[in-house]
């Protein structure tokens, strides 16, 4: 137990000495793939000691991944990570911590039913004879708090703290372990304005004390306010690194967008002028996540929904199909007011939702393709509750062939399929009996390029057949290239609805980020 104390003391001493000098991190030519998705491609960045270095970019640009590579959460597939001049290969966040690099993640990782001070010194509390030494624990905590420049009640249970305070606990824990570089991954995403301001203060104070901060965020205003240096990422590549003083909001936006040319989209078919309105949503609000949203979709139209992750697009989809309780607003289908109160109601009405996460919301992974595809339509394949296997098999084989689901057998569990094929199964499930309205939420997430193109073709073809389609996607290009009109959501509200020539990246991104488009200022 004395060794524990000794180790602890050295950690603290390290931290004390180190607080004068933050860590320098150099990332050289790093590549990182997740399955078929290239999250980082040939990324090189230098993080100078004692600075706040921001990583910005759109959803999926790779900014979080880069932060996690630095903190040892993800190991790069190739390329080098050099910390304080020494090449490093981290296998876990524990490894990086030995060099004083730690991460405050989007999802807080604390022991909820323990006190603040216990969490801060989790894993290496001061101990004597196997018992935690309460007095020394308190002393060390006070010492640490003084050094950090902000305080929290040491006895409070972490579970009872606000998220903002839980993040502070994480920061304290990083400092207690001698952190000299802290990666903050979207730290203000769930904070109120005041809490965010407080966090900025803490971040600056940490810099004053010499700690290096890597600040991952998609809030451009706060990044400009806070950072010394800003690196812009797009599609997993570094677009630019420059001092924050030289950047402007519209300049950042135009760097973050920009078209990558490696993906082709099928041509859109114009919506016939006499196409009837199929779905009309008026003033829908739900659960504090959606406020007064209205839109309508016509037969044969693809209505795109753009916006940041967390802007309320998926919640809107859930509210429309009755999977989330609507607190206000009306829904009309073919001119008739309808009130879907559950997904079952929506299914009967012909409104289908392809949910955002095929694994947790879309498919029963352990069951076969057949079972998944016919699940919502079993009434059509049964008499008196008994399933007719032959009719079922024929229907599934037909749609699996039409959607090009590649599998050795439709009896195979969905778990064994690739992401692209799983997504096609999800489409097959909802297209087996074509709905009037199809709401596709992130239909190409985690899918390889070939399957993406197949899904684009499918969406265009379905629209051409007269289906009304709502396309929610965080890939801006998808929304821009496939939609006839684009709705942009921000913080649960519909920020803009663009059609025709108005649909361009700058307008959409500006609306999504809540800033004035560059063009509009001129």
């Amino acid at each position, binding site marked *: 137990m004395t060794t524990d104390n000794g180790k602890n003391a050295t950690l603290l001493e390290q931290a004390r000495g180190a607080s004068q000098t933050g860590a320098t991190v150099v990332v050289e030519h790093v590549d990182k793939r997740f399955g078929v998705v290239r999250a980082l491609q040939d990324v090189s960045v230098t993080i100078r000691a004692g600075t706040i270095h921001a990583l910005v970019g759109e959803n999926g640009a790779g900014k979080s991944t880069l932060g996690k590579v630095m903190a040892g959460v993800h190991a790069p597939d190739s390329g080098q990570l050099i910390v304080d001049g020494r090449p490093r290969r981290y296998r876990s966040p524990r490894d990086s911590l030995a060099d004083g690099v730690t991460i405050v993640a989007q999802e807080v990782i604390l022991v909820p039913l323990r006190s603040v001070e216990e969490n801060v010194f989790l894993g290496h509390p001061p101990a004597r004879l196997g018992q935690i030494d309460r007095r020394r624990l308190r002393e060390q905590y006070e010492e640490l708090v003084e050094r950090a420049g902000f305080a929290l009640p040491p006895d409070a249970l972490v579970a009872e703290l606000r998220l903002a305070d839980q993040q502070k606990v994480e920061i304290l824990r990083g400092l207690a372990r001698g952190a000299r570089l802290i990666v903050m991954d979207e730290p203000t995403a769930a904070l109120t304005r005041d809490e965010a301001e407080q966090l900025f203060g803490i971040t600056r104070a940490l810099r004053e004390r010499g700690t290096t901060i890597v600040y991952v965020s998609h809030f451009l205003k706060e990044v400009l306010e806070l950072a010394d240096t800003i690196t812009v990422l797009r599609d997993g590549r570094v677009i630019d690194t420059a001092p924050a003083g030289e950047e402007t909001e519209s300049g950042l936006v135009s760097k973050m967008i920009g078209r990558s040319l490696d993906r082709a989209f099928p041509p859109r078919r114009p919506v016939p002028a006499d196409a009837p309105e199929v779905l009309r949503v008026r003033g829908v609000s739900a659960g504090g996540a959606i406020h007064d949203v209205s839109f309508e979709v016509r037969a044969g139209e693809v209505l795109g929904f753009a916006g940041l992750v967390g802007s309320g697009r998926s919640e809107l989809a859930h509210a429309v199909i009755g999977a989330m309780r609507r607190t206000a607003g009306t829904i009309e289908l073919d001119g008739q007011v309808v009130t879907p109160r*559950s*997904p*079952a109601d929506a299914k*009967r009405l012909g409104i289908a939702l392809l949910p955002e996460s095929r694994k947790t919301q*879309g498919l029963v992974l352990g069951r076969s393709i057949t079972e998944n595809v016919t*699940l919502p339509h*079993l009434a059509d394949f*049964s008499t008196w*509750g008994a*399933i007719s296997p032959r009719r079922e098999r024929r229907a599934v084989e037909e749609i699996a062939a039409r959607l090009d689901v590649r599998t050795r057998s439709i009896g195979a569990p969905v778990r064994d399929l690739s992401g692209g094929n799983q997504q096609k199964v999800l489409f097959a499930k909802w297209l087996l009996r074509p709905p009037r309205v199809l709401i596709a939420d992130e239909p190409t997430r985690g899918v390889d390029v070939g399957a993406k193109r197949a899904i684009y073709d499918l969406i265009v073809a379905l629209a051409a057949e007269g289906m009304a389609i709502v396309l929610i996607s965080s890939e801006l290009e998808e929304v821009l290239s496939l939609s006839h009109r684009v709705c942009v959501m921000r913080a649960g509200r519909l920020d803009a609805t663009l059609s025709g020539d108005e649909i361009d990246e700058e307008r959409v991104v500006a609306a999504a980020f809540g800033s004035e488009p560059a063009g509009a200022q001129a």
Partner: protein
Amino acid sequence: MSTVDAAVDVAAEATPAQSRMRLAAVRDYGIVVSFVILFVVLCFASDAFLSKTNLLNILSQWSPTLIMAAAATIVFASGGFDLSIGSIFGLAGVVVALLVDDVGIPLAVAAGIGAGAACGLFNGLLMTVGRINPFIATLATMMMILGVAYLLSDGNLIAVTSTGFSDIGNGELLGVTYTVWIAAVFIIACSLLLSRTVFGRFVYAVGGNPEAAWLSGIGVNRVRMVAFILSGVSAALAGIIVASRISTGQADAGGLNLALDALTGVILGGASLAGGEGTIWRTVVGVLLLALIGNGFNLIGVDATYQRIVQGGIILAAVGLDAWVRTSPR
């Protein structure tokens, strides 16, 4: 260079995947193989084992357990768990014994089954509307239902005088006891229900991924409740059979042991507590494996005390293998 690396990678990935498939096969068919091996061993180890009388005796004796295990498989597949079947077993026996002399066999049996269904409905409500973990909910109702059964019987054995009643548990048709016929019909019905009907599909979907099932328009709570009601009915049926055998209703009629055997059989049959899996025929093999162990120990003359130790060891082996197969790195 990179191609070589890639080739090595592929080879390195294929091997664990293949061995995992082999392990999964062991998990899927291990229970069958174990059963066959034990069966053959017993044929040689004891002359008395392989006789029509002994085998039918085993089946007859284990029929109540098989009935409960069949329904428990459906509960497992729907993502639930029902510990209270042992108490429902006793309650149904008491209810029937109290009524049968006054209202006749059909009505009394119907009342017993109805009591089981009501208990199942209550369990289902606790899990769905009450959102209580089914293990804990049915642990509680296990005690409550046992208490109710004691209340109804005043803690006494309730002797039945109507002669016809004991026929249910003791009568024979074509040389096979009614009990075995009842169990066979019930098991086949459960098996068809799970594998061939819309309800069965819903059960697997609800157990495998409740959110996806709900977004597919399935009444998740309704499916779970029906599974619990079935479970209650199965326990009542088993309890009535045993009460008839001894012409006695008794709150504490050994239902807990039978319930544990039934749940053990389900686990040995490979149904997962996580839900979305499980088939009736494998559960049946699982229960019969337990039956063979018990019978074998008797015939060979090993102290019955060791039987429980062996049973526990087999559960650990089966479940350990299962956990190992599941958590192997993907």
